[in-house]
């Protein structure tokens, strides 16, 4: 195509000189198509996309990603149903049929509710004890009283040790 550039130019100019408009247009078209198309710098697209991103024009995640995630989840669910259904049915059948399944499910549900209720009650009691202790300890007066009690206990213990030592020395004597 590049080699035809000169020929196209001369052909076009010849047609123009002779006033052959239709031929001139065809030849000029060939000439333009043989010309390299001007090219912008390689980062123009990146810069433009960055400006668009600042406008918030892009969704946080492309829709196709959600579609793929949902499709994959459905496919896995379907596969699991197909694979495990016969297995589940055979287990249920070997254990005594639908009654066993209902009894087991009801038992599991009752156990779960009971454990939840027990745990909730215990958690509530502990929470109340902890809350009360925290409220008491949170005042300066209580803290001072506790410190005084500890110091008094230490002093009493020391006096008691002194008395004990005095009594032992008098006994030895």
């Amino acid at each position, binding site marked *: 195509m*590049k*080699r035809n550039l*000169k020929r196209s*130019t001369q052909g076009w100019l010849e047609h*123009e000189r002779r006033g052959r408009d239709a031929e001139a247009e065809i030849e000029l078209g060939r000439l333009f198509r043989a010309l390299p198309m*001007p090219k912008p710098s390689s980062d*123009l697209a990146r810069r*433009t996309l960055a400006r*668009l991103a600042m406008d918030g024009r892009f969704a946080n995640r492309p829709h196709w990603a959600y579609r793929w995630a949902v499709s994959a989840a459905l496919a896995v669910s379907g596969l699991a149903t197909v694979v495990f259904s016969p297995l589940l049915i055979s287990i249920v059948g070997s254990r005594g049929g639908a009654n066993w399944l209902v009894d087991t499910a009801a038992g599991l549900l009752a156990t779960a509710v009971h454990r939840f209720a027990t745990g909730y009650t215990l958690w509530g009691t502990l929470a109340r004890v902890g809350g009360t202790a925290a409220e008491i300890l949170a005042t300066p007066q209580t803290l001072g009283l506790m410190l005084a009690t500890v110091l008094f206990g230490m002093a009493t213990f020391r006096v008691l040790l002194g008395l004990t030592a005095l009594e032992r020395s008098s006994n030895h004597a």
Partner: protein
Amino acid sequence: MSKRDNSRVTRALSGSQEAYQRLLEEYQRPVFSIIVRMVRDAGLAEDLTQETFLKAFRSLDSFDQSRKFSSWLFSIAHNTTIDHVRRKQLPTVSLDSAGDSEDGAGLAFLAVAPDASPEEALTHHDLAAALERALAGLRPEYAEVLVLRFQQEMSYEEISGVTGLVLGTVKTHIYRARKELAAALESAGWDPGAHAGSRR
């Protein structure tokens, strides 16, 4: 409008960055090609190309998808560039200086086929450069209609839709542009008749 463009526009409207990117990659070169021939400054043409795409993408929801996307985009490029030309009153570039910018960016795209002989490569480059200079010497609206008609291969009706000119004016512009381009090339020594063989 092509199904591919239609799909990309729909996906772009739903926020797909990839769809915007594809539209940009597809049309940045044709848009830049039109604008740079009108303003004759590669840096300015890049700015106006970016402005064109930003305007187009920001008003994408108003785009009538029964139209050709390229025609709609080119009309935005046309309006953006004409607004700029009118604001700045771009001077006419002389044929000798057109494309001879300091960094040579004006004609930097005149690549030569790797299999061309040195003589062919020289002729090709000289001729392409002469054509670009001749194009740069035309009025911006003449250069634009030539590019739309002969590089983008648009019909007169499509060019009328892009430029907002009536059909008769489009035909007149193209005719006069052709004649001026031919005269410019002949005066540069590419005359097939009297001066044949005077250039390589």
